[in-house]
């Protein structure tokens, strides 16, 4: 598939994901919160080849929209422009750093289910959130490399999960599908040993198994 990508957020995570997307050969747009000149400078250095745009234009240009803004600024994401598109939630809720947010504090649902509701994004999956941006930057490796790290992709719709899994694979990581979206609870900070652990596919599988979470499909 063509899989045009937009990354909303040009911070620590967004710039790394845009760079990996460009390296994966995907047409890549990127949007940030600052002024266009600052965004241009940042993209030019950190994600050359990605095209700086406004959030709405970036989202409309893409098939897959990766949202990597601070969760406190979720309201700045142009929800209308996401309609019909695959949305990847790369964000985490961690109050000591992000501050307490009413919509997420004490919630029984996973943060991605809340994000899906806030954005009205029908086709939303959770991925990229459980590795740090330095690690995403450092560990992108070709398929088959024994050191390759794994990224879980959690979502309700198998076809949507598969499309994001293809992107994850092309960006240098072994995708591991989880159904449904709420299965992504184990990827959240503080909920298991997965967040921040940089696991290989085999390690992620055995960690999930120990948690009683079964992966959705076995990829070859």
């Amino acid at each position, binding site marked *: 598939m063509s899989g045009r990508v937009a990354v909303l957020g040009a911070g620590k995570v967004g710039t790394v994901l845009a760079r990996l997307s460009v390296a994966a050969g995907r047409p890549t747009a990127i949007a940030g919160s600052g002024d266009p000149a600052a965004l241009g400078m940042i993209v030019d250095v*950190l994600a050359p080849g990605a095209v700086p745009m406004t959030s709405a234009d970036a989202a409309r240009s893409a098939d897959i929209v990766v949202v990597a803004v601070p969760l406190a600024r979720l309201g700045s994401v142009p929800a209308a422009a996401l309609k019909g598109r695959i949305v990847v939630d790369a964000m985490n809720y961690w109050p*000591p*750093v*992000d*501050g307490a947010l009413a919509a997420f504090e004490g919630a029984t649902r996973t943060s991605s289910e809340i994000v899906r509701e806030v954005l009205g994004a029908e086709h939303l999956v959770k991925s990229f959130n459980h590795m740090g941006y*330095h690690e995403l930057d450092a560990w992108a490796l070709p398929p088959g490399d024994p050191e390759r790290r794994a990224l879980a992709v959690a979502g309700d719709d198998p076809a949507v999960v598969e499309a994001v899994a293809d992107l994850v694979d092309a960006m240098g990581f072994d995708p591991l599908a989880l159904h449904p979206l709420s299965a992504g609870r184990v990827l959240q900070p503080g909920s298991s040993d997965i967040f921040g652990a940089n696991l290989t596919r085999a390690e992620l599988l055995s960690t999930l198994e120990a948690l009683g979470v079964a992966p959705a499909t076995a990829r070859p």
Partner: protein
Amino acid sequence: MELGIYSFGDLRGISTRERLADLVAQARYADEAGLDVIALGEHHRADFALSAPEMVLAAIASVTDRIRLSTGVTVLSTADPVRVYQQFATLDQLSGGRAEIIAGRGAFTESFPLFGHDLREYEVLFDEKIRLLLRLVKEERITWQGRTRPPLDDALIVPRALQPTLPVWIGVGGTPQSAVRAGRLGASMFLAIFTDPAPARGLVEIYRRAAAAAGHDVDSLRTASGGHMFIGRTSQGARDAFFPYYSEYLSLLPQFPGGMPREVYDQWIRAGLLVGSPQEVIDKIMGHRELLGISRYVGQFDVGGMPAGMVNESLELFATEVAPVVRKEAAA
């Protein structure tokens, strides 16, 4: 090349009174041993002693002669820049011109609710206040209007610092927009780096481009870096001794709720964390200098509630075996 230390006044296993007394004594030693700077970081949490670092810096000023006295960082977004300037101008007078400020967000956010600020306003708070502070260091009388504090109408801001311009750095933790801002404002940039310094090359490049585009003399701007540091006589000895304290300390991060695993610790050291023998730490600081062009490195030297004896031994190795060699190699 300048070398220094920084602390948050970690309170694990020690009382506030003892920690502050230790800090003043360690600063005195650092001054006598020829280190260039001590920086104290502001936090508003029960596990750190330094919600008012400028008070401790004033105490240090009175028992030291040469060492520069900095914050690391001042959480400017939730402070009044006028008051910050007054405090540091006073510290500068008391210390004979040794005060500096690193302004930044800091690792935590407790000060926002504490002082009645909305974290979602972080951008406008920091942007407006850093611009005001950078004017205050130059203008004795100031007229200013904005959203984040009451207007100033030809206000007299005294006392003035002893230094012609009180040095103000902007602390950057990895967010590219922060590097753009530091460059545009022509402020020096302090980079927080804990493992591999290589990814920060992009931030330095962005900083320099932004400074040049805004018409600043890029070569006059300074870049510094800092992160966690522990030095032992031997490589393996240092790693083993420091690990339990560091693992416990990093349990405050979301990825290590049960403490940092040893294999991740060893991976971080391989990637660049400054833990090891004097020679290993020398090589890593020189790596920062070569990759990033820094003219100052400061190490957080009392991480994780280590006993004072461990802290002091590491500090002594830094002052006597690391700093002289780094200065010599940097000058070569």
